[in-house]
Every structure is written in C-alpha cells, then in structure tokens.
C-alpha cells in the first residue's frame, strides 16, 4: 500500500485529479474504519473523512516527494478527530447503552440494518469485541484500533497520534487488557 500511495500522491501533487480519486479509494476504507471507531457515530465519521481529505488537499504542498504519505494522512485524520471532538462534544459523549449499542453495531459494520454484508468469523464475539472497544477511553481505543485493527506498528501508531512509542505501547497494552477483561478472558 505504501509504494502505491507514494506513487499516487506524487501524481496528485503534479495535478492529476484521477490520482487523488485513486488515493481516496485506497486509503478511505481504513481511514473511515479508524474514524468510525473513534467518533462512534457514522454521520460524524462521514464528515471527518471528508474534512481529512480536504485538509490533505489543501496541505498537499507540504508533501515531500518519495515519502510515505500514509502516516501523515492518518495524523491529519487524528488531528481532525480531536478538533471536531472538542467542537462537537456530543460526538464523543456516551449515551445510555440501550440507546447506543444497536446503532453503533450497525454503524461499525457499515451495513444498513437488515442488509447482508461481510461478517467476522464469529459474529457473536465480533459484536462483543466492538461493544467492549466502545467502552475504552479514547486514547486506549485509538491505540487498539491502530495497532490491532489497522495493523500499524507501535512506532507508526505513536507517530500518527503524536505521542512517544513508550506511551503508545502502554495505551495499547492497557486497552488490550481491558478488552480481554470485558470479553471474559484472562487478564
């Protein structure tokens, strides 16, 4: 993904709008997954994704040729989430579980209610994992989403979140321990 993203970014900086669309197709699914899990609201995540790519577009002259744009774009998504979360406190304020969980479940799988879509190997465990993920504090949730769901290394996740690898490792570990506890596994 890195080499392809680099190539697309270079063509985009050179004025190729098609390259931007390809870049969007390449990165948007993962970024959207990250934003949905952070914002816990699909409508907010929609806006955040558009805002993220708008910021990428407006800051494209900050790109360095030959560099991997993915951590930078993720960091823009992280910053966009933080800024919007501060502005729209309601996006991150939990409501009661009865109201929230069914809606969140539908949002996170990305499927409209009742629609058939891709499912995890064990839907029951997946639902429980998602619900548990929801309960984590934002920093731990971000650490788990980046390192587990997105497959980023601790160093990459730290770079995206603007923290040290040590702090990211602690957040990921604590988040992971909390997840296991919530799912009834050994601590």
């Amino acid at each position, binding site marked *: 993904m890195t080499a392809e993203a680099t190539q697309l970014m270079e063509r985009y900086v050179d004025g190729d709008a098609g390259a931007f669309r390809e870049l969007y197709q390449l990165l948007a699914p993962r970024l959207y997954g990250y934003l949905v899990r952070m914002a816990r609201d699909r409508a907010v995540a929609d806006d955040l994704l*558009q805002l993220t790519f708008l910021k990428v577009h407006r800051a494209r002259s900050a790109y360095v040729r030959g560099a991997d744009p993915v951590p930078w774009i993720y960091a823009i998504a992280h910053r966009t989430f933080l800024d919007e979360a501060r502005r729209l406190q309601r996006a991150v304020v939990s409501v009661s579980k009865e109201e929230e969980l069914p809606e969140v479940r539908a949002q996170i799988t990305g499927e409209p209610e009742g629609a058939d879509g891709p499912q995890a190997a064990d839907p029951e465990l997946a639902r429980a994992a998602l619900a548990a993920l929801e309960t984590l504090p934002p920093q731990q949730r971000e650490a788990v989403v980046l390192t587990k769901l997105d497959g980023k290394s601790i160093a990459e996740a730290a770079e995206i979140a*603007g923290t040290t690898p040590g702090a990211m490792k602690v957040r990921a570990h604590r988040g*992971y321990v909390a997840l296991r506890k919530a799912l009834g596994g050994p601590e």
Partner: protein
Amino acid sequence: MKDGIPADGIDQTLIDLPLPPPPPLGDELAAELARLRPVRARRPLRDLARVGAVSLVYGAAVLGLATMRHDGAPVGLLVGYAAIWFSGFASLLWLALVPRRGAVMPRWRAAGIGALAASVLFVVAGFALDGQGGPGSAELGLQRLPGGHMCMGLGVATALVPVVLGALVLRGALPVGSRWAAAGLGAAGGSLGGLVLHLHCPIVDGWHLGIAHGGVVAVSAALAAALASRRLQ
C-alpha cells in the same frame, strides 16, 4: 506477540472485523479537484538552506543596526562562542525542518527535546561564564536584569524571521507535534538571536549572559510554541 502485546483469539477477532464502506467523495472536495493545479512539493533541504540563509542575512542586518561590540575581546573567544551559538541555530533548524528519509512530518519530538536542552544549556552556560573576558553590568552602570531587557528584546526580534519563515515552510506538514516543532523553530531563532547578542553586547556577568542572552532561546521557544504551532498543522 507483536510489539509486546500478547496475541490470542481477540487479536484475530479484531483483525477480522469487517470495515465499513466509506462514503463517496464529497461535493466540496470534488469541486476543489475540478480546479486542481500542480503544486511544488516541499523540499526540506532546500527549505533549510533558504530559511537558514535568509535568517543569517537578517541577523547580520540586525547586528549592523545594533553595532558590533568594540570591547577588545579576544578573537578566539568571539569566534568560539559564536560557533556554539551558530551550531545551536543550525542543528535546531535542521531538526525542525527536515524529516527523516521517507517521512513527511519533520522530527518534531527531537526538535522539541532539542529546544528544551538548548534552553537549559544556554542559560546554564551563561551563568557559568560569569566575568570571563569583559565588563559586568554594574561596571557599565546598568542593573543586572533591568539592563538586560534591551538584549532580550533584540534577541527575540532576531528570532522572529526564522520562526516566521519556518512556519511558512512547514504549513500543513505537522498535524501532530506542531507545538514541539514550533518550539524547535523558536529555539533555533533564539540561538540566532543569542549569536547576534554575543557579537553585539560586551557585558559578561552571569546574570546578564544567563538570563538576557541564554534566556532568549527559552523565551523564543515558548513564544513560538504558543503562537506559531497552529500554523504548522
């Protein structure tokens, strides 16, 4: 096990979670794309050279206006300390502007740590060099700190240009860590200010050197972090 995090069934469950389909490109973005023009990508080493060169010319102009010191200080001492100030300026500017190979974002953490280290070192060094090879504030009829505000002002004014130019060059490059990178830029500018002060001001008592000269690095770093960081995001 990956990065110290134990792997088990939950790992696979998380990896297997289906990704939600993203929305299509928004109208605002599509409209901007319709007007897409090529832009010049950032070239960090060229930017470093340009910001460094313009800042040095500006520093020389400030020194020209403020006048060079004429206290007969040994050339070796003048050049030696000037080289230390200059290396502070160059290395901090490099950390703040140039990313590691293959990265878009500069080394903001290193720049921030460098700013902290330089702030402490230049203040401590100023106190340590008390009275070496020149007059103290009292001998020139000045009080220690009130007499130092002119130097502090001159140093911070000198720091302004590298900070502004650096912020322009890094605009949009640092969605995270911008405060640290801005502190690095400020400390670089403060080091240039310290260099100008070293070549302008003959006072060598510890309070003056430590607070009014060395303190320029810390003050410039703090001001840049507070005022310029949003520009880098």
